[in-house]
């Protein structure tokens, strides 16, 4: 079995639980899992030493990790991970990095893995309308979808090594613009409430925002909504030409369930659909369907959530 290397996934400067999921995936693929933590301050790597299933942690310390630059990150990571099967998360940034690291070593990359059976990897194709099973030989870089593999415990205690690395930065960040709204992006959220053209007007999305705030959810939209209303930006679009998401809970409001939209959200753990048309295709994919107009259902949803969550 090959050695495995997990590139730690960080979120808001903290170790993300996704890293534990990546270790689970790594242990299915090979042995001796080393976690590499890209960091400018090695203290963040301490948390990784507790992750069960890993044998070693390398804090790859470099100034280049302060901002994302694909070329510099790949170069810096390559110096501490010259061989072995490399596993990353399938976040947008980590997929980009995975492709870079693979190309640097002239090996292949398999993105968005959702299941591992021996040396066979499954990945969604056509945005999840079908599944492709592939086998690979030799080393490869593999990105793994979040919320698919169970996370390992945090009851380990493995050694940590700090290695100074460097890379050549090829782009210059001129400015970082914070999102105006405090609300999460659909690609980062565990709960998403999305609206479609059935919302009637873009102003009615405020009702979705109100519920999103109670749940700590992101607000998404169907392509029809994004294409119809300038007020609904493409960043909110869930679907084959928008973002592919797999949150724990996806609430679709006034969305009929076009094939385009289903492709982007069908792998969500739980799906709730609210639609006035009882025959809308979205109901075939919903765990819980509510046949009602949003005007009828959302106030009840909102007050029930308030009662439950306080």
């Amino acid at each position: 079995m090959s050695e495995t290397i997990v590139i730690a996934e960080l979120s808001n400067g903290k170790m993300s639980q996704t890293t534990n999921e990546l270790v689970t995936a790594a242990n299915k693929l090979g042995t001796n899992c080393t976690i590499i933590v890209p960091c400018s301050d090695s203290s963040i790597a301490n948390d990784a030493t507790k992750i069960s299933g890993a044998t070693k942690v390398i804090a790859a310390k470099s100034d280049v990790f302060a901002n994302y630059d694909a070329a510099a990150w790949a170069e810096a990571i390559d110096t501490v991970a010259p061989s072995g099967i490399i596993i990353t998360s399938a976040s947008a940034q980590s997929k980009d990095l995975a492709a870079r690291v693979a190309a640097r070593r002239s090996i292949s990359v398999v993105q968005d893995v959702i299941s591992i059976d021996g040396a066979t990897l499954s990945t969604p194709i056509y945005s999840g309308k079908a599944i492709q099973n592939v086998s690979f030989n030799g080393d490869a870089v593999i990105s793994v979808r979040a919320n698919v593999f169970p996370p390992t415990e945090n009851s380990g205690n493995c050694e940590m090594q700090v290695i100074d690395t460097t890379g050549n930065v090829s782009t210059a960040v001129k400015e970082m613009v914070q999102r105006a709204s405090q609300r999460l992006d659909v690609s980062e959220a565990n709960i998403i409430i999305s609206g479609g053209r059935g919302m009637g007007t873009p102003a009615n999305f405020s009702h979705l925002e109100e519920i999103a705030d109670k749940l700590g959810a992101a607000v998404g939209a169907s392509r029809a909504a994004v294409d119809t209303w300038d007020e609904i930006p493409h960043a909110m679009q869930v679907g084959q030409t928008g973002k592919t998401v797999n949150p724990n809970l996806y609430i679709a409001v006034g969305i009929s369930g076009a094939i385009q939209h289903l492709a982007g959200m069908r792998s969500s753990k739980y799906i709730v659909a609210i639609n006035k048309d009882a025959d809308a295709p979205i109901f075939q994919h919903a765990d819980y369907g509510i046949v009602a107009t949003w005007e009828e259902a959302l106030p009840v949803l909102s007050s029930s959530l308030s009662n439950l969550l306080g």
Partner: protein
Amino acid sequence: MVDIAVLVKQVPDTNSKIQISGDRVDLSTVKMDISPFDEFAVENALQHKESVGGTVTAITVGPAGADKVLKSVKALGVDNIIRLDCDDYMDSNGLQSTLAQEISSGGYDIVYCGKSAADTGAGSTGPGLAERLGWGSVSNITDISFDGGLTVTSPTEGGNAIIAVTLPAVITCDKGSIKVRKSNVKGIMMAKRAQVDVKPVTTPESSVSIVSHMMPPAKPAGKKFEGGDSAQTVVQLLRDEANII
């Protein structure tokens, strides 16, 4: 003056149903089209040329049927169209090395491509190609400006980064605020007569092989309720049955 390459790919129309025959995807009855994100790459490439002067060359890898996609972008104003002739499966390593050879020998300054292709959804080609060429890259851009050098907007955790790009570079494109142009009759007529520069390629050895294709596992039927008041029941089920809120 910049020599611009834009990578385009022919994929099934995103509204089409995908069917499996045996253990492989059957695309024989599916309408093929340009991958949606590639349209934004083409638009950015054309705007880049219009802003500073130069040429735009569209490149695809695929069989003769993919010429249609090249002609559709030719109709939009692309100068040259090249097809690297290959109908075999290539893994990311093979595809990127094939493209890297073509980009190196073509002497381009910048490559635009979609953030991912609508079939694989992988998004590996842009960054992987950049690494092989030793170029910088920015992925998933949602906005672009050419005044005072190339500046792009790319999403980060919690917002956006506005990034100054030094050429040569690979830029992968999302939809964002970019509006794509439509072809006109004159463009379409001209594209019809245009010659595709077809170049033979040797299929590189692949370390990844396709074992099978299958439909995603069907979800068990859910529970359906009538009327807005049932939202209360659903909230309770999300707590008691699903344990997610």
